[in-house]
Structure formats: structure tokens, C-alpha cells
């Protein structure tokens, strides 16, 4: 049986990778993907906990389901925003999108 800690480390790694992507990808869509990675990491934790903790009512899994749903919604809105933005800016590179600063 795999110890819980392994899952935790794994999800932490996944989270970190996602975070790195969010910090560095220039492409807005890339950033969205990275965010999805982070959500997955969290979900992994949830499920792992709900499996390993004693006396649980599957809250972990429920939570994970909702997280997935919300993530989907967020992704949809995000992509819509990106599309609209692309119409005006003709680019999706976030470091070129800085009309407003200071």
C-alpha cells in the first residue's frame, strides 16, 4: 500500500509545476493550463485524504467534484475572455498586454 505522504509529495510537485507555469508562460492560454494543473494537484490531495483518513464521509471526493466543475467553468470564461481580448490586441502574450500600469 502506498503511503499517504507519497501522494502528498506528488501533488505538491504538481502544484509547484503549475505555479511555475503560471509564473512564466507568456501565452495566456498556457497560464490557464498551468492553473488547471494546480487544481488537479489540489484534487489529488483531496481524494488521497478522503481515502486515507479514517471515518470520512467522502467529503474529499465531493469537494474534488465541485473543484473540477468550477475549474471547468472558470476555464470556459477564461477562454472567452482571451478570445475577446485577442480580437482587440491581436496577441495573447500577457507581457504584451500592459496598457495599464503605474
Amino acid at each position, binding site marked *: 500500500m502506498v503511503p499517504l505522504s507519497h501522494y502528498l509529495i506528488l501533488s505538491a510537485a504538481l502544484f509547484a509545476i503549475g*505555479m511555475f507555469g*503560471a*509564473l*512564466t508562460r507568456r501565452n495566456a492560454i498556457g*497560464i490557464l493550463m498551468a492553473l488547471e494543473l494546480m487544481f488537479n494537484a489540489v484534487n489529488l490531495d483531496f481524494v488521497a485524504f478522503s481515502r486515507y483518513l479514517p471515518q470520512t464521509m467522502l467529503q474529499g471526493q465531493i469537494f474534488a467534484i465541485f473543484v473540477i466543475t468550477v475549474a471547468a467553468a472558470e476555464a470556459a470564461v477564461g477562454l472567452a475572455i482571451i478570445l475577446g481580448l485577442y480580437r482587440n490586441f491581436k496577441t495573447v502574450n*500577457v*507581457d504584451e*498586454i*500592459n*496598457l*495599464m*500600469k*503605474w
Partner: protein
Amino acid sequence: MKLVVLVPLLPLLGVLINGLFGSKIRGRAHLIAVSASGLSCLVAFLVFVRAVGGEGLDWDLYSWLEVGDFQAPIGLLVDPLSAVMMLVVTFVGFLIHVYSIGYMHDDRGYARFFTYLNLFMFSMLVLVLANNYLLMFLGWEGVGLCSYLLIGFWYEKQSAADAGKKAFVVNRIGDAGFLLGLFLIWSTFGSLKYADVFKAVDPALGTGIYTAITLLLFVGAMGKSAQLPLYVWLPDAMEGPTPVSALIHAATMVTAGVYMVARSHPLYNLAPFSLDLVAWVGALTAVFSATIALVQNDIKRVVAYSTISQLGYMFLGAGAGAYASAIFHLGTHAFFKALLFLGAGSVIHSLHGEQDIRRMGGLWKAMPITAWTFLLASLANAGIFPLAGFWSKDEILFNAFERGLTVPWLLGLVGAFLTAFYMFRLFFQVFTGPFRGDAHVGHHLHESPPNMAYPLVVLGLFSVIAGLAFGFPPDQGLYHRFVAPVFETAHETAIEMAHATISSQVGMAALSLAIALLGIGLAYQFYIRRPELPSALAERMKGVYLLLLNKYWVDELYQAIFVDFGKNVCRFLWGVDSRVVDGAVNGSSWLTVRLSLLSAWNDLKIVDGLVNAVADVIQGGSLRLRRLQTGIVQNYILAMALGILGMVVIYLFIFP
């Protein structure tokens, strides 16, 4: 007796009327003013008579200032001393009012002039009649104000305005001392009423406190009565109209100091050091200014310096404890010095404003009344028997000698000699010999109109008889017996002294008389017999001559001193103070200006600067921080991540 309240109030009434409606009644302003002063003179005389009858009055009209255990009433005091002063002031004042009608008749500030004059009468009478030091101080400042206004009467003249301010500010320095004196009196005796204070006087307090009080008061006196070293303002004060010089700067105001010292004699009697100081300052001033008077060429300035020196005699007398004599001299001096000024005034009047005696001469024929009265006044001033000046001055010298103040006494004799000399130098220069002014003035020489002439005559009369009438025999004349109760302590000594050495007194009198005659003779020698001598002498002793001509460079000396003190930080404020005096005088005093500029700069740069600096820092920070806002979203995310990292690290490792 309570009529006395009218004495100051009448002039005040005049002030109000002229002040409010002066612009309307222009030419007739004198009616109000003169009648006001005349009436108050009358009332004063009545009161005086009652006072001679032995009545006195110490009357609190109402409580002026009452705070906690401090109270000072508005109250009048009539005792022989104040009665005499009151009479002198009102009488001379009245005469000078009359004289001014003629003298000022074509001035555009006619009404204003009489307003000020009445205001002065009022303040002076308050000063004299006050029954407590605070009210006296009110009068004291009041007369200062009036002298300021009247000296600067012709304010378009820069010099006049300056002189006025100089006078006021110098007086203010004196007043500062006076004020401190008042505080000390109050905190020592718990009251400012003469009665309470003098009742509370007891030697047990030790001389220290008395010396402190009296010295502080004397500072005030020095300022007001133009004694060394605060005399500088009086000569300049001659910028004012001549009647003003006569009234304020000869007869009344400048003698306030003497009056104050005499009034405070119970305190002075317990402070021998102060007495000696007073005497010394008096004697020195007497000689000092007399020497300056020797060479001055402005008729009024000569008289002015002679005034200073006569004031010196009065202080010598007061210092010698002969307060009565001091006041006596004050009275006689009021007559003949006023006379001198008015005479000078009428001379200037007929010469259309010419004041330089080198451009006069031979006026005897043209204006006999002026000449005669002027002669009498000069004799009196020189102290020639049996004129008024003789008696009073002789008494002072005698008392000084008896008091063992030998050096001051000698100085006094020297002063007497010089006085006689410069008075007659002046007289001969002005009235004898040929006329040295320009011709067209020479043709219009004329005697002054009656309303100017009569006062001369009256004053002349008094200058002659005053001494004999009131002051003979010395120390026991009518006057002395009248004022005796006030000064009993000092007086008794004088009495028995007199009994002891009547012979020596006569000898003394003879001596001073001789000296005076000597002076006159010398003057005669110089200016009648051999007119070339003076210039020759001046050539020979150029240094001395210049020294005197430039009044010992005292003003310049002050500058130097104060600059040096100004450098010294602990003298800092005093330095500023004194600089302000002269600084305010000649409009630019670099030390004060420098200091003030410095403080102004400091104000702008340092104090304000700090605040602005803070503001700048904030502004700057604002701009810097603003730059963090790059507008690139991932930088923001990074900031967030860093924040998280920081917090975790802090919590896990720094404060576990």
C-alpha cells in the same frame, strides 16, 4: 479736594473734542485746548491752595486691575510733592499752550497739534497724581507716546519720524526696567500703592532687594530723563516743534524720572548704593552733556544738552538724598528752561526756521522782549544770584558736599562753570554783535506776536523770583516747609545740617556764584572782546574740539559695543535689543537684520524644510513604489508568490 480729578480730565476732554471734530473746527482748535489746560491749571491752583492748607488726598476712583491677590486701583494722590508737580505742569503747560497759538498758527496739523498737547497734559498729570506705581506707569508710557507723536509731528520729514521712534524705543528700554521694578516691588510688598508699599518698607528685608528695586526703577528714570547712557534720544527730539521741546523735553516729561526717584525715596533711602549711583550718574551726565553743549551750533541743541545736564543736577541732588532740593530745582528749571526754549523758538520763528547760531547775531534790537527774557533765563540757568537757578542748584551742590560726595560735587562745580560759559556763548552769539544771517531774512526780523511774547514775560518773572520767593532761606523756604512732611527723613538731616554749618553754606554759595561769573566772563572774553579766539582755540585743540562736536562718537561707540556683544551668544538677546534701538533709529541695523534674516531663513529652510522634506520623501516613495506596478500580470503573481514564501518562511523558521 476731589476736584483734583478734573485736573487730568479737562485736558482729556480737550483731546476727545479736538480728536473727534478737529478736522471740522481746524482753526479754532486752540480755543478748546487752551481753555482746557487753562481751567485745569486753575483747578490745580485751587487744589494746591487747599493742599498748602494741609489737606491731603489718597483716593481710589475704582479698582483697575484686580486679579487674585494682585490689585491696582485708578487712584489719585495729592500730597505736597504731587501738588507742586501738578502746579508746575499745569502752569507751564498752560503758558506753552498759549505760546503755541502763535507759533503753530499756520501749520496744517493745527488741530492735531493741540490734541497731542492736551493728551500730553493728561498723561503727565496722571503720572504725577497717580497714587500707585501702575497708574504712574500708565502716565509714564502715555507721555512717552505723546513725545513720540509730537517729535514726529512733521512726519513727512524723515529725520523727524526717525527721531520720534528713537525716543519711543529708547524709552521703552527704560520702561522695561521700570516694569521689572514694579514686579519686584509687588512681589516683595504685595502691593503697588505708594501708601502700602512705603508702609511695608522695613530694613529687615536687607538692602539687596531694595538695591535691586531702586536700580530697576532708575533704569526707567535714565530712559525717561535722558541720563547716561540712555540720553541719546533727547538731542534728536529737537526735531519736534519748539513748544514741544519746551514743554516735554525741558519742563515736564524729562523730569518725570526725577519725580519718580523722589517719589520712591523711602526705597532709595534704604539702598545707599543706588543713591550713590544716582548721584554719580547725575554728576557725570551734567558735565558730559555740558561739554558737548560747549561747541554745538544749533540753538535748540545747545539748550537740549543744557537740559540734560540740568537733569543731571537734579539726579545729583536726589542721589544726595536732598529730594526736596531736586524737586525744587526741577521746578525752577521748568521755568527758565521752558523760557529758554520758547525764546529760542521765537528767535527761530522770526528767522523763518533758521537754527544755526553762526547765522544769527545782533537780534537784541529786533526783538527786545525775547532778548531780555532770554538773558534772565540764561542767568538763572547759569545760577547767578539771586535768580531761581542759583538757589536750587546751590542747594543741590551743598547737599552733595555735605553728603560727602566730594567728587560728584566737584563735577557739579565744573558743570556750573561750563553751564555759565555755554549759556552766554549762546546768548552773545545770538543777540549781540552783527547779524550774520542772509540779508533778506535780516530785513524781516520782528518781535514775536503778543500771544508768544506774554508767556515769555511771565516765565521770565518766575525765573527771577521763584527761588527767592519759595526757596529762601535755603532748605527752609516756603517750599521746603511745604514739602517737608513728604521727605521728613531726608529733610531733618538737611535741617540740622543747615543749622550746623550755616557759614559753610554761605561760603559754598559764594564759591559756586564765583565760578558761574567766571564762566560768563570767559564767554564775554571769547565772543565779545576777541571773537577770533574760539576758532583759534578750536584749531589748537582740534582733537578735543572734534570729540565734543561729534558728541564723543557715542552713537558709533554703541554700534561697536553691541556688535561685539552680539557675537557673544550669552549677550545675544541684549545685543539684539540694543541693536534694535539704533537699528530702528537709522532704519538699518545690520546685526538685527542679519539675525532676523537668519531666523527668517531658518524659518523657511529648517523648520519648514523638515516638514517639506518629509513630504518630499513621501512623494518620492510614491513615485518609486508606483514603478513596481509594471502592468505585467505575471509580475503581480510573482509578488504574490513571494509574499506567500515570505510568510511561510517567517512562520516555519523565524518564529516557529
